[in-house]
C-alpha cells in the first residue's frame, strides 16, 4: 500500500515501477501438469464436433470451437484435452475453459510456419490473437483501415507492473521486427512507442517514434497518452479506436515479431510477480499455467482472505481460485496479504473533495458518487459526466470514506450498456 505523504498539500504521486539499468534474467516456471485456456463463448452457436475431450493437440495448434466464428485459442503444449467447461469472467463475459494435459513431448504444428513468407492481415489475425500480450489484431482487421496510428506501450499502465517495460528494453530485436510486420500488414505508418520519461534513449532505429511520458500513474493509461502524447482528447463515451488510434502492448508487438522470426507462435508469457512482501520478480511461464504453480515456485503461501490480483493494483481484478490460469494479457500477479488490502466501507461521502482534486478527467466525483449510490445511472451520465471517466481508480485510492467509487462507475457503465442492448434489440 502506498501511503499518502505526510504533507498533504500536493496530490499523491504514484510512481511507476522502474527497472534497473542492468536487466535481471527472467525466472522460468517449469511446465505445469495441466494448462487451461479460455475460449470465447457464444451461446447462439453450437459447439463444433471437431473438438472433444480426449482429442490430442499439438504445440501451436489452433483450437477453434465454433466452425462459423472467428474465435480460437492456440495450444501452448502438446497433449490431450481433458475437459471443456463453461466459465464466467468479470462483467458477465462467458468463456469455455479448455483444459489440456501435456504429454511431455513438444510436437509442433506447422500450419503457421508454412505461411510466414508473405505476412498478411488474415494470417496475423488468424493466428496471433491469443499470443502473449493479446495483440488487438482482430480489431485492426475489422477496422477497414480507419486506424491511422498505432501506439505501442513500452510502459505498463499500472504501477508496480514492469512487464512491458522489461520486454521493450530486452527484446528490441523482436520489437523492431514486430513493428516492421505491423507496418507491412496494416499499412499504418504512424507508430509510436511510449516509454517512461527518462528512458527515451536507447531505442535506436526501431522504425517508430519514441515518446516519453511522466513516470507517474496514470500517465500511461490510453486516455492520458492520447491527451499528453497525441494531443487528442477522447470525447466522453468514445474509444481511442474511434479516433483511429490502436494500442498495442510491447509484448504483443514482440510476439508478432518473434512469430514471424521463428515460425512458431510464441506461447511463453512474461509477467511481473509481486510477492507478499512486495519483492517484484520477472517471471516467464507458459500461457495457461495455473497461478498456484507460480506461487508454489516462489514458496508463497496463501492464507484465508488473502488476495491474488491479476493486473495492477489500481485497475486489476482479484481472482477467487489458485487454479485460475495465466492468460495472454495477464501482465502481473500480485499476492496481497489480507492485512494490507484496502477494504471498502459503507461510510457516507463527507464531501472532502480529495477525489475531485485528483481526478485526471476533472470529473465531479463527489456528486457522481451520490447518484451512483442511489442507482441513478442515467442522471449520473447526463449531469455528472460518467462517460468521461478514464477508469484509473484514483478516486477510490484517495477516498477517506473508502467508498468503492471506481467499482460504482464500472458497474454504472455496465448497467447502462446492458439497458441499452434490449432497447437496441427492440428498435
Amino acid at each position, binding site marked *: 500500500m502506498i501511503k499518502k505523504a505526510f504533507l498533504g498539500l500536493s496530490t499523491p504521486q504514484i510512481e511507476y515501477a522502474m527497472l534497473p539499468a542492468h536487466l535481471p534474467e527472467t525466472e522460468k516456471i517449469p511446465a505445469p501438469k495441466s494448462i487451461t485456456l479460455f475460449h470465447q463463448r457464444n451461446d447462439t452457436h453450437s459447439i463444433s464436433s471437431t473438438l472433444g475431450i480426449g482429442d490430442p493437440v499439438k504445440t501451436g495448434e489452433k483450437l477453434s470451437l465454433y466452425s462459423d466464428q472467428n474465435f480460437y485459442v492456440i495450444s501452448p503444449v502438446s497433449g490431450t484435452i481433458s475437459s471443456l467447461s463453461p466459465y464466467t469472467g468479470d462483467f458477465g463475459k462467458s468463456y469455455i475453459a479448455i483444459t489440456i494435459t501435456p504429454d511431455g513431448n513438444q510436437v509442433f504444428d506447422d500450419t503457421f510456419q508454412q505461411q510466414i513468407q508473405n505476412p498478411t492481415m488474415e494470417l496475423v489475425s488468424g493466428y496471433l490473437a491469443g499470443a502473449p500480450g493479446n495483440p488487438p489484431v482482430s480489431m485492426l482487421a475489422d477496422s477497414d483501415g480507419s486506424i491511422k496510428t498505432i501506439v505501442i506501450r513500452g510502459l505498463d499502465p499500472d504501477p508496480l507492473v514492469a512487464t512491458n517495460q522489461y520486454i521493450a528494453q530486452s527484446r528490441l530485436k523482436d520489437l523492431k521486427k514486430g513493428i516492421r510486420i505491423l507496418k507491412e500488414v496494416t499499412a499504418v505508418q504512424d507508430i509510436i512507442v511510449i516509454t517512461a520519461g527518462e528512458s527515451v534513449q536507447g531505442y535506436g532505429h526501431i522504425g517508430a517514434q519514441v515518446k516519453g511520458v511522466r513516470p507517474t500513474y496514470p500517465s500511461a493509461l490510453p*486516455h492520458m497518452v492520447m491527451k499528453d502524447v497525441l494531443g487528442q482528447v477522447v470525447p466522453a463515451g468514445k474509444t481511442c479506436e474511434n479516433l483511429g488510434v490502436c494500442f498495442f502492448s510491447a509484448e504483443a508487438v514482440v510476439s508478432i515479431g518473434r512469430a514471424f522470426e521463428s515460425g512458431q507462435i510464441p506461447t511463453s508469457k512474461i509477467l511481473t510477480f509481486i510477492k507478499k512482501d512486495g519483492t517484484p520478480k520477472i517471471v516467464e511461464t507458459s500461457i495457461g499455467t495455473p497461478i498456484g504453480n507460480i506461487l508454489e515456485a516462489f514458496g508463497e503461501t496463501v492464507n*484465508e482472505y488473502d488476495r491474488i490480483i491479476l493486473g495492477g493494483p489500481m485497475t*486489476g*481484478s482479484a481472482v477467487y481460485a489458485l487454479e485460475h490460469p495465466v492468460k495472454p494479457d495477464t501482465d502481473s500477479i500480485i499476492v496481497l496479504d489480507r492485512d494490507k488490502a484496502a477494504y471498502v466501507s459503507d461510510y457516507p461521502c463527507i464531501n472532502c473533495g480529495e477525489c475531485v482534486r485528483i481526478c485526471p478527467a476533472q470529473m465531479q466525483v463527489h456528486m457522481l458518487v451520490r447518484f451512483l449510490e442511489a442507482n441513478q445511472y442515467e442522471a449520473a451520465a447526463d449531469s455528472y459526466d460518467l462517460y468521461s471517466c478514464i477508469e484509473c481508480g484514483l478516486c477510490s485510492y484517495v477516498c477517506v470514506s473508502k467508498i468503492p467509487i471506481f467499482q460504482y462507475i464500472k458497474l454504472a457503465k455496465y448497467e447502462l450498456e446492458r439497458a441499452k442492448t434490449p432497447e437496441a434489440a427492440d428498435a
Partner: protein
Amino acid sequence: MLEKRDLLEQQTPLEQKKLIVSHAPFYHSGRRVTERSYHTMLAALPALLLGFYHYGMPAISVVCLSISTAIFWELAFNLVAKRTITIGDGNAALLGLLFAMLLPATTPWWAVITGTFIAVVVGKQIFGGIGSNAFNPVALAIAIMMVSYKELFDFDTALLNYDLEFATIYPLKAAKYFGTASLDSFNLVDLFLGRQLGGIGATFGLGLMLGGIYLMLRGFIRWEISLTFLAGVYLAAFVFNLFDPVRFAGPGIHLLTGYTLIGAFFLATEDSSSPVNIIPMLVYGAAGGIMVVLIRNIGAYVDGVVLAILVINLLSPLLDKIRPEALGKVM
C-alpha cells in the same frame, strides 16, 4: 473480527483456500475520516490550552461536558434511529470540542448540553449524518444559541468575575458601541497572543494559526478557503476603516478578535458544507470574510462570524456549479 476469521478457517478445509474477490484499486492512501477528526482536534489544542490557562477549571469542565454530551447525543440518535453507531469516527467529539471553544468559560451546563444537542442532532444527524449537513453544525448551534440566549454570549458580563492580567473588555463589543477610540488599550501583539476576552479556545491567534497551518500542510483543510476568508476580512475591514476610522476598527483588530481565526481555520473549512473546486473555494472564503465585516460593522450582531459562515454554507452548492469541464465532455 479475529475470532470470526479463526472460526471460518476451522470450518473450511485447508485445500480450498478462500480468496477475497474484491475490486480495484487494491491500494488506498490510508487517509480515513477518523484521522481527519483527531488531527483537527490536535490542531485545536494550542488555542485550547491557553484558554484553560486563562480561565481555569470552569473552562475545562465546559470543554469536557461539551465533548462528552456531543458523543452522547450522537450515540443516542444512532440508537433511536437504528443506524450504524458512528461515534468512532471522532466527528461528534470534534463538534463538541469546537462548540466548547467558542463558548465563554462560564457557560452554564444546560446551555452546553442544549448546544451540543443542536450541533449533533439538529445540525448534523437529522440531515442524514456526516457528509449530508448543509450547514456547519457548530456554527448552526452557536447561531441558534446566540439568538435564544443573547446574554450568554455577552463576554463582558459572562467573564466579569475573572481577574485576568489584561483588560476585561470584549474588544468587538467595545468597538461596535463605543467607537474605535475604546480600542486604544489593545495592541495587536497582545490580541495575537490571546490576551483578550472571548471564547475558551477562540482568542489565541497564534495557537489557532499554528493549528491552521498544520491542518493546511497535512491537507486536512484547504488553504484556499482559510486564506481567502482572512483576506476577505482584511480587505473589507480596511475599506470600512478607510472611510470612517472613528466608527470602524482597523483590519488588524477584525482579524485577531472574536471568532475570525477559529472561523477561518476550523469552521468555514468544514468538509460537507464547503465547496470542493478551486474557484468556488476562493469565492466561498472571500464572501465569508467580507460578510463577517459587514455584519460586525453595519449589522445588528457584535460578531458575525458564525452567521457569515451559515450564509456561505448556503452558497456552497451553488458555487460548486463553477467547475472545470470534464475530460472529453460532449456538449
